[in-house]
């Protein structure tokens, strides 16, 4: 498109109108791609932080017979110990589903194949995570600094991706302006978020209570519900696409609280019933409250 500021090309013909619309769509799509690079960078950075927090808590939640080092096998742990493992696992699973939903809502540039890139990054993060789980179970004598290095390496691929997306976004010279409109979440998402908060809180609360069967049922039920509802309007991916900053901050708080509760259940001498009950409330409240807080809306979304 060279200098086209003249008025001689009025689009009153069918072909001209079609060509203009196609050009407009192409330009609009390129701008949208650039905006989504910023969102992608933020999402990848926070997922990297989430993976790091999860891996570090896994290292610290493990406990040897002498109170230091790693546990001599998860199977040998007490019901409370298993509760700690589940308390760690559930928020991580929920965070992964939410992040996947957010990524699905973003446009991708022609240079990146999202499916392939996602598989590579998932594998690059998953291998260290599985390795560290293996260390916790089979090599409890591993010095914790080495375990922490492995934990950091799990979040490294996401960190690299995040920096790349951020640099691409910075170079594009496009950014999203402040939203002019805020509105409550849709009724379906309000219900989903409230249920998520209560269910997650219940799962965390049961982590330290002396009836592990109830906790296991709650956790399995939550995993089942997440899987079954995944592609429906009640699913977590849909929820992530509508959330604003307030809801994401609330989830981040609940996520960190849940995995810190897991560490406390495994490492502290505090009453596990009190720790998990208070933890469950602290996990549930932010999600339930912010389910009814407004989220920003931009035109074209």
């Amino acid at each position, binding site marked *: 498109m060279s200098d086209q500021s003249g008025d001689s*090309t009025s689009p009153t013909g069918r072909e001209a109108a*079609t060509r203009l619309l196609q050009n407009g769509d192409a330009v609009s799509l390129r701008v949208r791609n650039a905006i989504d690079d910023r969102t992608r960078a933020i999402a990848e950075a926070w997922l990297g932080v989430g993976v790091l927090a999860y891996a570090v808590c896994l290292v610290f939640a493990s406990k040897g017979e002498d109170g230091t080092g790693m546990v001599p096998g998860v199977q040998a742990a007490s019901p409370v110990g298993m509760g700690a493992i589940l308390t760690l696992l559930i928020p991580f699973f929920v965070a992964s589903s939410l992040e996947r939903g957010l990524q699905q809502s973003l446009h991708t540039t022609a240079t990146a194949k999202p499916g392939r890139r996602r598989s590579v990054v998932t594998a690059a993060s998953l291998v260290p995570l599985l390795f560290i789980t293996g260390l916790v179970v089979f090599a409890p004598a591993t010095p914790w600094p080495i375990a922490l290095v492995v934990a950091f390496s799990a979040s490294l691929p996401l960190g690299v991706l995040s920096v790349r997306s951020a640099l691409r976004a910075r170079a594009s010279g*496009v950014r999203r302006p402040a939203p002019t409109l805020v509105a409550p979440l849709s009724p379906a998402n309000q219900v989903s978020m409230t249920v998520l908060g209560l269910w997650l809180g219940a799962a965390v609360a049961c982590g330290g209570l002396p009836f592990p069967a109830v906790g296991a049922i709650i956790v399995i039920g939550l995993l089942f519900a997440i899987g079954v509802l995944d592609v429906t309007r009640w699913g977590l991916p849909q929820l992530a696409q509508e959330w604003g900053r307030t809801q994401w901050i609330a989830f981040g708080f609940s996520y960190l609280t849940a995995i810190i509760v897991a560490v406390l259940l495994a490492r502290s001498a505090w009453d596990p019933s009190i720790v998990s009950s208070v933890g469950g409330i602290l996990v549930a409240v932010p999600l339930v409250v912010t389910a009814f807080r407004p989220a920003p809306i931009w035109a074209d979304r």
Partner: protein
Amino acid sequence: MTGQHPRHDLDDALLTPLRFSVMAALRADAEIDFATLRDLLETDDSALSKAISTLSTAGYVSVRKGFVGNRPRTWLTATGAGVAAMSIHVTALQAIAAGSSAAPGAADR
């Protein structure tokens, strides 16, 4: 407007391809700096300045000066009036492209 040819709904300020493309870029809920928009639309400073001046006079684009680091930048955004005008213009274009002889409703894209 029923019965009118859709060309009557075309907006004079958006009739040139460059001004139309500027609004197409800005309507994607974006704030874009001048140099990026120039490169995106493969045009030159002078033509883009003129286009923006026209759109700004029409009240369709707001211009904001800012800095990224020490470097000055000019940021452009579509105004509410600009988004609404673009929507009507695009609807008219779609009607023309579809071969309609009557004005369409005010439905958004």
